[in-house]
């Protein structure tokens, strides 16, 4: 077995350069970590500067500001790091181990070949004036503006009263509170006369936040936790903030010289473009990652492309820096020593049959397919996860998956249905990531499954071809089950979705041909659901007994 496997392997060369997109601290840390492992890095930043200046976290009171400066300075001293500022990623082609990227600088478009890409962009902030019915100007400013003023001329706040409002216009995020705590400290250091913080939804569940909150309060900052936003009346240079205190039963009013409005911490403006250029999935809130239980936190749907820090979630700096280290480890995992052994037959395109319709390219959830003008589509053995979605969608049956070729599977269907005894013959196509282990679990626990059950293993439900389903019926199956992972749990993102569409289509087709569509069923389950597996197959057996044997025997 092993020897046979080895002959089917080939060694390919992998580009070891790494592109890091984003020059904030997450990007800087990623670049340093990757370079430390010996891979050349190109770090690009859309703005003019890298390091703390490109960081979207508070510019004021950043803990360890010195340490971060030093980190950024190390970029220039480290061999093998190329830093390009005012530079954007314009286009990308290729696959893990062999990406070609085009970077547009102020003057030029540069081309680089890299083996892996890490997106480490920052988040965007926007003051939520509307949420408080306020217009900016005069005494009303946003959090970022305060931070800028504090960084430039902290003395201007000496003797001033400053109030903050947060947690009324959006649900709380520890990062919002952290920015406020840092500013409270900076204001107190600058000799502000009074600091008032009005919060709705207060979240301090992050490293050291509780302590920062207490320190500020002990130094005289006053916090009000309210159910509703206070009434705010802005008039020129001053703002009056009032609310009714239910405990002391009276109206409490504060006049401040400056009212600071909280800001949303949203997905960075570049993210949508980067997702389109890199063909990576976007999560529910626009961040660069869809949930997938099978993947490492920094991984994406594409091999060799990683996301770190605020490109995937807004959290504290220490968390982002840990993400950067994680991403660097994953990069090393892909690049290794610059060579890789890959199976020769993972997914192979028969160029003679292919009509170059691009269906495979458009359907592959891992972006593993590209094309060469002279060579039609090419499937990268590094990026391909052998899910078989492309093979099942190809209109010319031109793609074969190693170990799961059409001939092998169709042969299995015919063989398993060659002898049909008295029990209903049920063919269950089982995804090897969920239904197959669930079935094995049912067997291990000696749960009794119907005698006529015939399971056929597939690498992913996405490999279950419409033809296989029809074949099973033609060969005399009384019922067919297509068993996939739960929605949102497919290792290949959309294999279960494709399978469910095909089942619907097949139901339509068999109904048109005169067969009861109930003989075909789509079900989802997880690997540890032996009992559910049993329930599904028993239920199917029951249903088939009610319908009677297929008239196609």
């Amino acid at each position, binding site marked *: 077995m092993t020897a046979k496997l080895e002959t089917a392997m080939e060694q390919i060369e992998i580009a070891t350069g790494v592109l890091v997109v984003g020059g904030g601290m997450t990007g800087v840390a990623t670049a340093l970590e990757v370079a430390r492992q010996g891979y050349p890095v190109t770090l690009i930043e859309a703005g003019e500067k890298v390091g703390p200046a490109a960081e979207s976290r508070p510019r004021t009171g950043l803990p360890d500001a010195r340490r971060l400066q030093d980190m950024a300075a190390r970029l220039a001293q480290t061999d093998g790091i190329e830093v390009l500022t005012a530079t954007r990623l314009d286009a990308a082609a290729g696959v893990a181990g062999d990406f070609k990227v085009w970077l547009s600088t102020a003057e030029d478009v540069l081309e680089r070949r890299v083996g892996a890409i890490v997106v480490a962009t920052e988040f965007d902030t926007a003051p939520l004036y509307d949420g408080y019915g306020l217009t900016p100007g005069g005494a009303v400013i946003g959090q970022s503006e305060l931070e800028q003023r504090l960084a430039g001329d902290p003395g201007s706040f000496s003797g001033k009263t400053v109030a903050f409002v947060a947690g009324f216009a959006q649900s709380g995020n520890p990062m919002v509170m952290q920015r406020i705590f840092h500013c409270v400290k900076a204001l107190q250091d600058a000799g502000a006369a009074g600091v008032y913080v009005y919060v709705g939804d207060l979240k301090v569940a992050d490293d050291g936040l509780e302590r920062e909150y207490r320190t500020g309060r002990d130094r005289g900052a006053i916090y009000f936790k309210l159910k509703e936003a206070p009434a705010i009346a802005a008039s020129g240079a001053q703002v009056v903030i009032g609310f009714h205190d239910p405990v002391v039963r009276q109206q409490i009013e504060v006049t401040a010289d400056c009212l600071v409005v909280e800001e949303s911490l949203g997905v960075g403006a570049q993210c949508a473009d980067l997702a389109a250029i890199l063909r990576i999935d976007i999560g529910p809130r626009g961040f660069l990652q869809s949930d997938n239980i099978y993947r490492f936190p920094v991984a994406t749907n594409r091999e060799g492309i990683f996301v770190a820090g605020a490109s995937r979630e807004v959290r504290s700096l220490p968390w982002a820096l840990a993400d950067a280290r994680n991403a660097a480890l994953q990069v090393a995992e892909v690049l290794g020593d610059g060579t890789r052994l890959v199976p020769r037959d993972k997914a192979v395109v028969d160029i003679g*049959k292919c*009509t*170059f*319709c*691009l*269906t495979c390219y*458009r*359907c592959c959830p891992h972006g593993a397919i590209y094309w060469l003008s002279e060579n039609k589509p090419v499937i990268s053995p590094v990026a391909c996860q052998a899910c078989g979605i492309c093979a099942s*969608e*190809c*209109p*010319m*049956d*031109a793609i074969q998956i190693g170990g799961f070729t059409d001939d092998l599977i169709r042969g299995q269907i015919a063989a398993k249905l060659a002898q049909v005894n008295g029990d209903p013959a049920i063919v269950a196509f089982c995804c090897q990531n969920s239904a197959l282990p669930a079935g094995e679990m049912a067997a291990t626990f000696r749960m009794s499954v119907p005698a006529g059950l015939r399971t056929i293993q597939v690498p992913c439900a996405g490999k279950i071809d*419409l*033809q296989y389903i*029809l*074949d099973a*019926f*033609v060969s005399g199956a009384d019922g067919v089950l297509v068993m996939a992972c739960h929605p949102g749990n497919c290792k290949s993102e959309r294999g279960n979705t494709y399978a469910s569409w095909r089942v619907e289509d097949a139901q339509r*087709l*068999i109904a*048109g*041909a*005169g*067969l009861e569509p109930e003989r075909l069923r789509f079900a989802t389950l997880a690997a540890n659901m032996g009992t559910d597996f049993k329930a599904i197959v028993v239920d199917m057996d029951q249903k088939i007994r009610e319908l009677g044997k297929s*008239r*196609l025997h």
Partner: protein
Amino acid sequence: MIVAERKPLEEIESMLKGYRRVLTVGCGTCVAVCLAGGEKEVGILNAELQIARKLDENPIELGAACVERQCDMEFLDELQGMVDQYDAILSMACGAGVQFMAERFEDVPVFPAVDTTFIGANRDVGWYEEKCRACGTCVLGMTAGICPVTMCAKGLFNGPCGGTNNGYCEIGNDQPCAWYRIYERLARQGRLEQIMEIHPANEWRNQTPRTLVQAAYRKRKELAAS
């Protein structure tokens, strides 16, 4: 490319009612690309037919083949040895392919398995949009690359008509007005004066089936004809 749609099984079945041995032939070009008649669709259609006929207790023997293009005689020649074993051919190509097939194998009934729908472009997997009516007088040069014959409900060469309605056609708000789009794009490209040029009406009457001989091959055709 040509876009086609698989005919309902019922219709195909009724055409094949009296035939017991049928060869289904896919076309590996346009109809394969639009996922209607390539090798995969041949297999699926055959499975459907097999199920339906068996349930009707009128079993059918089906053969499967797929040629590069049914609109080229040379590729149809590949079927030469096979066809005699069948009493009918089911072609999954567009109307051009079906007719060439019927011409090539004149003694065998040839039936179409798809409805040829339009000349279109591929927006996404399985999603096609009509783009061209093959009118024979392409005006795209003066219409900013938007076909008024296809896109305008009246096929106007000089538009818009009075019904244009905030970017939409008077036939309904799902249908963008072709001439509004033409205007917008000409304006964007700074060549709006072209919309003022009157284009003479096309001669739609008495149209006969067209033959096209590319200029470089006219001599070749004359030679073949002589």
